[in-house]
């Protein structure tokens, strides 16, 4: 039996707490331990070790004071130790034992009465040696009858006879605790010097002193006297091994909120939540104090550190990707769970350090620290006896480096397999998103998006950015792997194929220029990092713009809705791809609106003294109107298109004359019924398709002079059925055609002129038609855009549709032979009108 006394010159240093933790630690790790409270003047060890049952425990047993009263003068039949000690439970999994001999039933009156009596009967200085023998007899009897491996003594603070006896004679090792002030250090030094000089009994080894600096929140005195005192302590006692070849240092116990403040006793505890700086320091100290348990202490420390690190990661919010990486809630993680095999999968059970469960309580992931080489056994159990989808095994190598291995399996798979993920721990949402959380590949994430998991979008957009930017420095936080343009293209194509509208909206929201960085919840100003401007440009040109044309039109319309910041019109990036890159036209409606506002302001007389303010206000209103137009420029309509209205009215009255509105009024109801009757509508459209009359303008949609584009949904859907096309891509093709027309009309050339030649026909009569040459040009640019987008579905739809459209719609093939510059020249010419050519207008003639 080894006896360790815990002593402090001054009280309140956490001496009893350290002893209690040491006792539990040793018992958990297979040792027999007796804790003896010899702090008779202020006993409290039963509170630390007995917890809530402390008073109940001491009411059932005597304790050291009653025992010594009975044996102070010796006895040939001393009272049984069982009557004066309490057996305490050891934490689950521990294979040692722990008994406590409290001082007595303190703080009850009968204890103090007994204590007074003991003072009269037990005189340690009695020349007969009787008093001394009484205490030595207690220690020897504990060793003889209980046979513990360790006797831990809580010695009285200060300089007392019993404290002196406990430390100089009873103890093999004395832990001397002090706090970081000169008073405490000086007293401790005096006592330690006395301890080292004190005579020992013949069969006793020299006393071992381990000084410990406690409650180190206070800054130690920064003077030479204190430092010299500490050095002197270390010369007499044993310190912590210094780093490298440096001198030993003091063991220091920090004060913390996890163990220190609430005075928790967790020694030997393997649950990560018990881990704290103080517990880590305890374990480090225990390695020194109890050399036979040094290795287990090191393993517990490593295990706790490793598991606590993992737990912290699992419950910490990641700064990016929104809900995808939202952390595990504390309630979803259980610690130190003995997991049983699933029904009909055996009767074994296994200890898991952490078990992460779904909201329904289904275990999804386990974390186990594998101390020995039992990885195979662990995998065997978790793989075959449970349904968990992810297993994280932690193991320390000889250098103390914690290796992580993640094993995963698909939802229905039977076998766990090794995952490439090592540091990137799965988050709860990933178990819903991914069939196999070990597979966070582009394809897997795209599959999640295909299944409507909107959270995967942010990750994919981020991956696109990191893969497409050639230099790591261009990326926020300089992260990501090498430049992988092919991967970026795969992501782009995968995103573009998204059918789910919610996901498509999210894709455009995430990809939108304007630097919306969700992890900061605020607009990210591009000046914040060196390549911000370049990054924004690339995101706009290479990601948002292609997706703007390729994703479902419904989602595109959503992206045009007002954003959080005034003036933010992400759709412009899409239009610019067509206008700038292909048509060679600057397209900047904001600038145009500002210029128009200036012209307007110049024409209107100043109305009040605040002329400047009024001008600004008018300009702002103009700008605002322009933006509203941008937002409302495309509409999905359930109404009947003009072509069907005219057709309907002439079916009814072949020689009818009137405007479109009048015709709509006349046959509106029949047209509506026609749209509602899928059979009739398809029949009409089939006939038109055969006659090659499926014009984009007037039937599938319209572009009106007001700048508005309408897509007639029932007609497009029915036409898609007739032509065996996807309505989604047909909508996009019509949208592209009409948008090209709109840009040809609205975008200004370098002279600031609009494309008046592309003004849509007023459609006041049934036979108003767009110029065939203009249609051909628009189709040619639509073809160029679709080829630029490299979207096979769009291309096939475009080509198939054009076979059923009037002649000018299908001449894009011939136009492909023309170089882009030539096409642009033709466009400029076709846009020209009288004002563009500088010819005198009617007003000038007058």
């Amino acid at each position: 039996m080894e006896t360790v006394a815990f002593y402090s010159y001054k009280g309140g240093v956490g001496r009893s707490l350290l002893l209690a933790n040491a006792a539990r630690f040793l018992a958990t790790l297979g040792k027999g331990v007796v804790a003896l409270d010899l702090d008779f003047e202020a006993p409290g060890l039963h509170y630390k070790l007995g917890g809530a049952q402390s008073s109940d425990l001491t009411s059932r047993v005597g304790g050291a004071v009653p025992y010594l009263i009975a044996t102070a003068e010796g006895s040939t039949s001393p009272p049984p130790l069982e009557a004066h000690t309490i057996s305490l439970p050891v934490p689950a999994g521990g294979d040692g034992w722990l008994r406590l001999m409290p001082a007595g039933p303190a703080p009850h009156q009968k204890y103090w009465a007994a204590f007074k009596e003991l003072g009269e009967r037990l005189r340690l200085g009695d020349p007969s040696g009787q008093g001394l023998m009484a205490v030595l007899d207690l220690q020897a009897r504990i060793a003889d009858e209980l046979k513990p491996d360790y006797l831990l003594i809580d010695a009285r603070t200060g300089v007392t006879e019993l404290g002196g006896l406990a430390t100089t004679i009873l103890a093999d090792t004395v832990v001397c605790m002090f706090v970081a002030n000169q008073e405490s250090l000086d007293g401790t030094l005096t006592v330690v010097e006395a301890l080292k000089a004190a005579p020992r009994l013949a069969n006793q080894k020299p006393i071992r002193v381990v000084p410990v600096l406690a409650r180190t929140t206070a800054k130690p005195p920064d003077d030479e006297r204190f430092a010299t005192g500490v050095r002197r302590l270390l010369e007499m006692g044993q310190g912590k091994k210094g780093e490298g070849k440096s001198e030993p240092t003091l063991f220091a116990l920090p004060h913390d909120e996890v163990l220190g403040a609430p005075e928790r006793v967790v020694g030997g505890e393997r649950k990560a939540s018990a881990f704290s700086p103080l517990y880590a320091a305890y374990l480090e100290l225990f390695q020194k104090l109890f050399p036979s348990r040094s290795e287990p202490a090191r393993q517990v420390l490593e295990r706790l550190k490793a598991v606590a690190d993992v737990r912290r990661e699992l419950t910490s919010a990641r700064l990016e990707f929104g809900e995808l990486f939202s952390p595990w809630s504390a309630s979803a993680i259980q610690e130190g769970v003995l997991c049983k095999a699933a029904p009909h999968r055996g009767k074994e059970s296994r200890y898991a350090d952490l078990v992460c469960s779904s909201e329904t309580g289904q275990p999804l992931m386990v974390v186990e620290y594998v101390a020995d080489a039992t990885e195979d056994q662990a995998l065997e159990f978790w793989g075959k006896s449970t349904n968990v989808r992810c297993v994280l095994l932690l193991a320390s190598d000889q250098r103390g480096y914690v290796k992580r291995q993640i094993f995963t399996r698909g939802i229905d798979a039977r076998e766990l397999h090794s995952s490439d993920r090592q540091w990137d721990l799965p988050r709860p949402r990933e178990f819903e998103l991914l069939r196999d959380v070990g597979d966070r590949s582009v394809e897997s994430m795209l599959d999640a998006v295909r299944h409507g998991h909107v959270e995967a979008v942010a990750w994919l957009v981020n991956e696109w950015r990191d893969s497409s930017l050639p230099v790591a420095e261009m990326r926020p936080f300089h992260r990501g792997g090498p430049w992988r343009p092919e991967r970026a293209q795969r992501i782009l194509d995968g995103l573009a194929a998204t059918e789910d509208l919610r996901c498509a909206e999210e894709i455009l929201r995430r990809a939108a220029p304007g630097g919306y960085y969700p992890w900061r919840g605020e607009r990210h100003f591009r000046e914040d990092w060196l390549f911000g401007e370049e990054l924004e440009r690339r995101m706009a040109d290479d990601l948002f713009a292609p997706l703007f044309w390729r994703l479902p039109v419904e989602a595109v319309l959503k992206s045009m809705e007002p954003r959080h910041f005034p003036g933010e019109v992400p759709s412009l990036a899409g239009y610019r791809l067509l206008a700038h890159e292909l048509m060679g036209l600057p397209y900047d409606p904001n600038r145009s609106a500002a210029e128009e506002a200036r012209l307007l302001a110049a024409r209107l007389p100043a109305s009040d003294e605040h002329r400047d303010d009024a001008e600004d206000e008018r300009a702002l209103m103009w700008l605002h109107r322009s933006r509203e137009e941008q937002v409302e420029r495309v509409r999905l309509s359930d109404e009947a298109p003009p072509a069907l209205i005219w057709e309907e009215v002439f079916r009814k009255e072949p020689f009818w004359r009137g405007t479109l509105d009048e015709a709509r009024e006349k046959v509106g109801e029949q047209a509506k019924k026609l749209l509602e009757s899928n059979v009739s509508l398809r029949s009409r459209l089939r006939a038109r398709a055969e006659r090659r009359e499926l014009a984009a303008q007037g039937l599938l949609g319209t572009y009106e002079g007001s700048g508005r584009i309408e897509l007639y949904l029932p007609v497009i859907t029915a036409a898609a059925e007739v032509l065996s096309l996807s309505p989604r891509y047909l909508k996009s093709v019509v949208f592209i055609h009409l948008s090209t027309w709109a840009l040809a009309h609205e975008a200004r050339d370098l002279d600031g002129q609009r494309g008046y030649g592309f003004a849509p026909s007023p459609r006041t009569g049934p036979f108003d038609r767009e110029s065939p040459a203009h249609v051909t040009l628009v189709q040619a640019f639509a073809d160029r855009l679709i080829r630029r987008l490299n979207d096979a579905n769009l291309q096939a739809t475009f080509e198939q549709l054009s076979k059923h459209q009037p002649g000018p719609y299908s001449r894009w093939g011939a136009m492909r032979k023309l170089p882009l510059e030539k096409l642009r020249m033709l466009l400029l010419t076709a846009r020209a009108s009288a004002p563009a050519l500088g010819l005198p207008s009617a007003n000038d003639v007058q």
Partner: protein
Amino acid sequence: MQQNGKSVETDTLNSLVTGAIWRAEQLEAHGIGSAPQAWSEVSSLEEELAKVISVSESEGRIARRGAVRAALKAGEYARAHALAGSYAAEGAAPGSLKAGLRKILEEDARAMERRFRYAAKQHSLREARDLARRFREAGAFGLAA
């Protein structure tokens, strides 16, 4: 007269010590706390007898042994040892008395070892007594030395 006086004193002391021994034994037998004081009184009376009866007389040797034994029973270990030392040092003290006194002290030590049998297995009583002396002289941790 002197002899008579001595005789008178001896008789008185003998009867006193006889009564004191009976009283002390009764108190001890009944576990009454004042037994040590009674044995202390016995020791004092025996010591007085030893003063008046020579060591060469058997009664004088009995009184000397009785004084030491009673002191030990009274828990006056130091006094017992002091008495034993002084009696053994008397010039006319026969070897049998010295042996007897030593035996009394040894028996006491053995009795104490029986009462503290667990400690006695590991430590000698002599060492404990030495340490106790240090405690007495130098205080806790030896700091008062």
